[in-house]
């Protein structure tokens, strides 16, 4: 029995660890999407957050400075995206993809510029876990969920705040209006573009924190393309979680769980090619999408720039 509890706890811990960067980024994406901004550039935002978070922590010696810089790094990329999509009214998918490539090049170049080409990995000490009194005493769940680093607590807090904002405040109603019908929102006197700019800043902050989680909380170092596709998975998590902050965390944990399950299965020596196991997380994502098929949770005007003088 105790052994079973240990196994459950280690799976939960692994799921949460992998879900944290995905959920942080996905919360930002969900917010921007509610306002009608489609951000394929999430990968770039996370990479920028991972890089600037690391570099600031490395040179300042302070992880707090690193976290703030990670958020700012995310904002930097998301603001370029916002300008291109809201002001220039460019195709949001193309801009997002272009930004992903741009950020990959930019961070790799700057990393090379600062540290040069060598085999010594520059690193910082990663974030320490903070054990919360009382809550961490809950059997099984306590040590997993309440003995974590500061970014995970920021994630919990953000989930609660986003949930309240989305479903319990007038602010959330306005956000939904801007995404579902920007013309009506404009007629009602809501600032469509202002709302969208703010949503992009929030997207940048959380995408940047998601990236910084990888370099500051998990690995303590930066390498080229360190995010390696998690920005795209975050977009999937938003759809799986149907833009609901709580479901977003659960979806991200499901993907994390599938990943650690496939590793566990591989260690058992089952005679199947390893590629079959590596497919598992994506297979589960597709199955969940199929099961939850129905009305899309995406707003009607997702990805469409608002042009006041046209109809």
């Amino acid at each position, binding site marked *: 029995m105790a052994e079973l509890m240990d196994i459950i706890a*280690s799976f939960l811990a*692994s799921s949460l*660890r*992998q879900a944290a960067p995905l959920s942080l980024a996905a919360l930002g994406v969900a917010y921007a999407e509610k306002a009608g901004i489609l951000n394929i550039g999430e990968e770039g935002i996370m990479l920028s957050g991972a890089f600037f978070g690391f570099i600031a922590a490395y040179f300042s010696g302070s992880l707090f400075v690193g976290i703030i810089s990670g958020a700012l790094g995310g904002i930097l990329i998301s603001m370029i995206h916002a300008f291109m999509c809201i002001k220039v009214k460019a195709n949001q998918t193309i801009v997002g993809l272009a930004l992903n490539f741009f950020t990959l090049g930019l961070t*790799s170049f700057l*990393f*090379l510029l600062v540290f040069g*080409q*060598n*085999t*010594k*990995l520059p*690193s910082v000490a990663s974030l320490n876990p903070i054990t919360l009194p009382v809550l961490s005493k809950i059997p099984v769940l306590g040590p997993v969920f309440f003995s974590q680093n500061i970014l995970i607590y920021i994630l919990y807090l953000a989930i609660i705040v986003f949930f309240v904002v989305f479903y319990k405040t007038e602010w959330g109603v306005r956000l939904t209006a801007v995404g579902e019908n920007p013309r009506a929102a404009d007629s009602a006197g809501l600032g469509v573009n202002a709302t969208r700019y703010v949503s992009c800043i929030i997207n940048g902050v959380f995408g940047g924190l998601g990236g910084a989680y*990888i370099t500051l909380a*998990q*690995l*303590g*170092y930066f*390498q*080229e*393309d*360190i995010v*390696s*596709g*998690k920005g795209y998975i975050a977009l999937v998590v938003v759809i799986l979680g149907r833009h609901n902050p709580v479901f977003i965390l659960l979806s991200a944990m499901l993907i994390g769980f599938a*990943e*650690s399950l496939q*590793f*566990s299965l*591989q*260690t058992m*020596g*089952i*005679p199947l*090619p*390893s*590629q079959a196991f*590596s497919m598992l997380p994506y297979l589960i994502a597709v199955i969940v999408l199929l099961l939850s098929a129905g009305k899309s949770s995406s707003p009607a005007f997702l990805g469409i720039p608002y042009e006041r003088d046209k109809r």
Partner: protein
Amino acid sequence: MKKALVLLLVLVTTFAFAFAGGSTDGGSDSIDSMALILSGPANDQGWNAVAVAGLEATAEKFGLSTTIMENVSIADSEAAYRQLAAEGYDIIIGHGYQYGEPAAAVSHEFPNKYFIATESNSYSENAASYVMACEQGAYVMGLMAAGMSESGIVGVIGGFEQPSITKEIEAFKIAAKSINPDIQVLSIYINSFTDTNLGYEAAMTMINHGADVVYQVANQAGNGALIACAERGVYCMGNSYDQNSIAPEYVLTSTIYNMDQVMITAVSSILDGTFTGGVYNLGMDKKVVEIAPYHALEDVIPAQLKEKISDTIEDIIDGSLVVPVISSPTK
């Protein structure tokens, strides 16, 4: 106005490409340039960084000009060889198993150029594969892992399930079993060379299953495994170069690949005219594969185990021990 501007831009770009293409002449007989194709970033502090260092050393020795093409996927590899050959590079090296077939395929189109792939098995008239006997290093790592393990469970993490990786994992298993026949070797292929997070989680899974020594054969992604081991206080072993600096208290040793020796061997055979297509194996006897020093962990490793390891290395060098090359995974 806008249209005219776009048209102008298109024209300028076209001319730029046309002239850039025309400036190279591929007709000369002398060998004066070499190019390197990499599967990931050149600055990955691992597999590719080692190749870049080798390229630079070789170029300096023979006075060649060089270029590097990074992040070339399997799908783009033929095009990469073709482009570099057309640009006039005389020797083109693809660093990794996956570049073997494309090298042989493209080699027929450019009979005056030399095509080389590392870790592969394809060849033609003017294409050769240079295989580093990585399994020799992995065999020694297997001895180390089994010798240091107290739980009787050790782990080995591979990148992709491909012959160049599998041969290391299988050699590791054989060696571990030679020290302790009852040992349990956990193996995971993460199917990535770049996703550090997967390396980290794979190591965590192994440690949760009781592994207390972990070896990684997953390039950049494997660095995550070393971080996970350091976090959980478990010994581990690095790959490609001396990775002790990543976690000095936990990285026991590393398998080192001296790519410069491979490239120097290849280029000097081309320059003195003895080059023929084929598959060449280079191992510990040529100092292509080496084992990194133990650094601060010198005293942690039992003297008996260190002796066993140095004896084994001697046996491999003088040929009395041949590490088998097994290129399909056993479960």
